[in-house]
């Protein structure tokens, strides 16, 4: 029963991923400009252009190119970048790592902070702490990410305090995270953008759980408040919050674009902006499908966690 459910869910994810890959492929196909021309430059002779087109299989029918591309994805072959001439996988390897580091750090900050603040806010419902927390999260949730970023730069980097660098740089051959101080502002921005959603969701579900019959029952049983919160309330609030966290993680995969652009952070976001302006079709395709896949996988994981942690579904067979 539960295996069947998970299988169904997996199947749906695969179908969606395929549909998304088609969408990405078609969209990138429509990008103006000729990739062969882009690689060879303006002075390329027609003969060389033709040879390269042949080599890049640009003369093949569209469906065949799609199949080739999809086939390549499975073996980790993402094609060749028009801008550098090198393999896309090589080009993106470091970028992906850098973005993952940024997103990982932001998650490490925002998830615990979001859960703790949201929980306390719910427990202190209507009190000053709650008002401050909800007020802040309401304001932050409204702000576009670049507004948050620029505000942080002005406050902490350029105009008021001059503590953190506003631009990310790493010496050749060294990774961005070798200079942790550079990561502070991008991480903080990303965390500030993501946290309010977690706070709000945590607060809302906690309020709901705190009003639920079994929490009231726990209190009426004489369970100490700490245990009521930690053993009875929080575990129930976590499942819906996990969904929101998943959505936020997935959002990060695409939403880091603006933040990376702002801080010149060498991740997939800035790579995507570059690739789109450079008509680097293979890179755009690779990144789009990568981000889409991340979104689908994260959502799948959240759903699986939901299925597996639900005792109702887990013990279905027993009944």
């Amino acid at each position: 029963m539960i295996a069947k459910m998970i299988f169904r869910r997996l199947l749906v994810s695969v179908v969606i991923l395929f549909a998304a890959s088609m969408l990405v492929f078609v969209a990138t196909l429509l990008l103006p400009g000729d990739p062969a021309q882009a690689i060879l430059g303006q002075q390329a002779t027609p003969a060389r252009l033709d040879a390269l087109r042949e080599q890049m299989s640009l003369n093949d029918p569209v469906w065949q190119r799609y199949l080739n591309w999809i086939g390549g994805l499975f073996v980790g072959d993402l094609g060749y970048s028009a801008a550098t001439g090198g393999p896309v996988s090589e080009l993106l390897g470091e970028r992906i790592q850098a973005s993952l580091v940024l997103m990982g750090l932001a998650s490490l900050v925002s998830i615990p902070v979001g859960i703790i603040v949201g929980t306390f806010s719910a427990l202190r419902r209507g009190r000053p702490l709650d008002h401050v927390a909800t007020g802040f999260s309401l304001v932050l949730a409204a702000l576009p990410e670049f507004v948050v970023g620029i505000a942080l730069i002005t406050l902490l980097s350029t105009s008021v305090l001059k503590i953190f660098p506003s631009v990310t740089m790493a010496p050749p051959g060294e990774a961005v995270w070798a200079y942790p101080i550079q990561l502070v502002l991008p991480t903080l921005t990303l965390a500030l953008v993501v946290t309010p959603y977690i706070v709000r969701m945590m607060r809302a579900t906690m309020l709901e759980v705190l009003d639920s019959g079994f929490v009231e029952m726990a209190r009426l049983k004489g369970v100490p408040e700490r245990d009521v919160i930690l053993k009875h309330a929080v575990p129930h609030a976590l499942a819906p919050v996990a969904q929101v966290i998943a959505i936020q993680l997935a959002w990060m995969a695409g939403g880091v674009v603006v933040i990376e652009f702002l801080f010149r952070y060498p991740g997939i976001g800035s790579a995507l902006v570059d690739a789109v302006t450079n008509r680097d079709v293979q890179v755009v395709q690779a990144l789009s499908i990568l981000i889409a896949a991340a979104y689908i996988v994260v959502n799948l994981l959240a759903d699986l966690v939901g299925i597996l942690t639900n005792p109702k579904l887990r013990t279905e067979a027993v009944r």
Partner: protein
Amino acid sequence: MISPEPYDHRLQKAGPAHSRRNVLGGMVLGMGILLSACTTGAASVIPAPAGPPVKGGRLRVGLAGGGSADSLDAHAPVSTTDIARVVNLYEALLYRDENFALKPLLALSATPDDAALVWTVKLRPDVRFHDGRPMTAKDVVATFARITNPKDPKSSAASLSILDAVVPVSDYVVEFRLNTPTATFDDSLGQYALGIVPGDYDPARPVGTGPFKAKSFDPGRRSVFARNDDYWRENEPHLDELDILNFSDDDALINALLSTQVDAIGQIPLALLDVIGADPRIKILNSATGAWMPFTMRVDQKPFDDVRVRRAFRLAVDRPQMIEQVLSGNGTVGNDLYAPFDPGHAKTLPQRRQDIPAAKKLLSEAGYPNGIDIELVTAPIQAGAVEAAQVFAQQAAAAGIRVKLRRVDTTTYFGDDYLSWTFAQDFWYTRNFLPQANSSSLPTSPFNETHLDDPHFAVLVKEAATEIDETRRSALISQAQEILYDSGGYIIWGFPNQADAYQSYVAGLIPNKTGLSLSGYEFRRAWIGVTR
């Protein structure tokens, strides 16, 4: 005739490629340091080094651009970082000095015969390659054979189409035999992409005669060069080591300089010149150049097929204001003529000024009494290009020219429609008149963006090209320029300065008119004044 920067943007692979941030270690302070430094006053001012150059030290140069396609190939430099590396590893027969004067480099002299069909070049006898072998005529022949190899022509091959054969006369004399009489062939030889390399040259083993030897190279990131102890010039280079670092953009570049992660950076935004220069630790190298950023009107298409419309557009421009707004005052006003450093430059032609009534009148005569609507295609092809388009749009409005800006990205700009936009922009580095005219103003030109086809102009250019006598040649050039002044398709409103910045302990960098950054990348002259 030497063109230091041949069509470089056109060769670039679609735009500025993915480049990594390449800075040496240390904390990035951000631009905030800039303001704090301003307020700390003179206490932290380091006096500029004086006296004779000091030997030793390492210079770290930051440049924006480049990417993983960077190479050390002597004959295929594409990005700014490629050029900076090539200039320091290799040397051509002649070169353009800081005043845009053509000077011998590996040659002692270059002289044409009377018909300007055979050029004889005498080579410097005391030059050795990095691997210790002497540089001889054989190597020159091999070099040009490599460049013009029909199977794999290098970037300068186009300008060498007039070259029939390179013949060694003796160990240190070479003859260049041409198929067309060319009085300015020496200009062609003075390109940095014509560095002389040994016959067995392989870019993977970048051996040249330059002041520095390649030590390590990481494309798109960084290169480390060491001093060439056998360099033929006395007492040069001063530095032990030269690091060239790629940066992806101006912000990172400026931050790296301010946090002393690099010692010098090439090309800073002109609008920030004052602010950066106000930092007592930083010096600015502000060089006037002959580079130009024209608006291009297609003379064979409506509405610009009517010369009155072209004149009206030229009269609508407030050139000094252009320099003020676009270049923050760092530039020279243009007179719709390129090649300002050419000996034949028509200096006597009156400077064109904004004249709105005249422009309106011309438009009215041309059949546009109620003004004219025009689309201007712009793209961030060079710093200031989109800005110039915006300023033009604002200025031209007064003359009843309603400009609709169409901003496209660089890839689209240089895409299929490049050279066929009706009204657009472009950017060219400093060149003398004849190579420039050959590139962009003749029906046979590869980049005739204005679609100019003036028989009289073509005849004058051809005559000048074969005229060995410099005075007569200059006269012919002036005549040709007058045609451009009267009826050409370019609006050349000015020549932007090239601004670089460096730490005040760096010495030996001087302004350079070629348009290349940081003394034309001639780091052989640079030295470090204070030990860090």
